[in-house]
């Protein structure tokens, strides 16, 4: 289908973007790789799309004191190509290669993926596992929110109207493994696991099993398996299948950490 009608604006500064976002029915457009399909399927009908891709300084990768700051407009393809990301955030580098397909990774953005908070998406789980801090900008200034507080539920985040997610700070981990199970290359995960070790603590972020990514900090494999919540079924997989697959991922990941 074709998208419904809407107005379009491309602000050149954050101040201009905040003004536009105060208009009724305004919605942020970044890479558009989830928003435009939802418009095409008429699942969403904003009155005004505010294209933030002309805002400067929001697509850099910067390494400073053990953290990697990534601008919200950094595309998945740019994350995939970045030497810094591969070196300091191998978890994210591994995860992005699972996101859809090259043509989509060329436009989809880090900020878009986090702000949408799809329960089966890779990057929200990575942010949670790594204890990332999300930097949110509005007319009132900047605020910082931990990933654990940012993801509230199914497609629901801490972002308020007229706020823009401008960047993410990822602390480095000591070790990490990323795995997901899909029916076909590039599909959303049936179940996925972003796992890191930080200061001898194992942080396991599961995705695809609930409304938002779920973090476990188990001391043993048995404890991890026992503390898995009952997964939500989706259209194609029962809760029991997902629970089984989550345990399969745990077995595969545990000894690699």
């Amino acid at each position, binding site marked *: 289908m*074709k998208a419904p009608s809407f*107005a*379009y604006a491309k602000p050149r500064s954050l101040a201009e973007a905040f003004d536009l976002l105060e208009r009724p029915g305004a919605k942020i457009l970044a890479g558009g*790789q989830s928003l*435009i399909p939802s*418009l095409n399927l008429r699942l969403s009908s904003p009155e005004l799309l505010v294209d933030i891709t002309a805002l400067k300084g929001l697509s850099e990768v910067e390494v400073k004191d053990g953290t990697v700051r990534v601008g919200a407009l950094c595309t998945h393809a740019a994350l995939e190509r970045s030497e810094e990301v591969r070196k300091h955030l191998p978890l994210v580098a591994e995860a992005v290669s699972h996101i859809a397909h090259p*043509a989509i990774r060329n436009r989809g953005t880090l900020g878009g993926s986090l702000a949408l908070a799809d329960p089966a998406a890779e990057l929200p789980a990575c942010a949670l596992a790594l204890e990332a801090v999300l930097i949110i900008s509005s007319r009132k200034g900047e605020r910082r929110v931990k990933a654990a507080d940012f993801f509230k539920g199914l497609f629901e985040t801490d972002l308020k109207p007229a706020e823009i997610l401008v960047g993410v700070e990822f602390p480095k981990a000591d070790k990490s493994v990323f795995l997901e199970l899909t029916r076909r290359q*590039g599909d959303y995960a049936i179940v996925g696991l972003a796992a890191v070790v930080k200061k001898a603590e194992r942080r396991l972020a599961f995705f695809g099993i609930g409304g938002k990514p779920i973090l476990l900090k188990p001391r043993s494999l048995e404890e991890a398996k026992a503390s898995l919540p009952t997964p939500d079924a989706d259209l194609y997989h029962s809760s029991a299948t997902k629970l089984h697959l989550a345990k399969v991922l745990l077995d595969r990941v545990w000894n690699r950490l």
Partner: protein
Amino acid sequence: MTVNGTQVTRNVPPRQHLVDFLREELGLTGSHLGCEHGVCGACTIRVNGEIVRGCLMLAVQANGCRVDTIEGLSDSKELEKLQGAFHRRNALQCGFCTPGMLMAAQDLIRSGKKATREEIRAHISGNYCRCTGYHAIVDAIEEVIKTEVTHG
């Protein structure tokens, strides 16, 4: 925007997708329209040198961009070897997916990577073909990579 090397200026409604603009405004019907939600890859085109989904980009977002379509790449003979290999290997049947498939395959070949069959499959994983079962397509792309790419 510049389409296949020619400067184009138009007023477009914001809701118009880039692929519809190319097909309906410019008559460039080589880029096909399949699923219209980013799954099938039939509308794959190149924007500023990178492949994108023509149905997941608004025409207005391509303002000031360089857009290349199957017509441009075919006329410039950039796709000559790939087209030859597709023909020889029978890597198409109905042809609906072929323009998008060629755009995705050429993107891999241009990267200069000596891709394995598995990597070829991963790179075209976003392009659906309902006729061939992909085997002949992978054969054709592999043939070109083997002859074209000398480093990797």
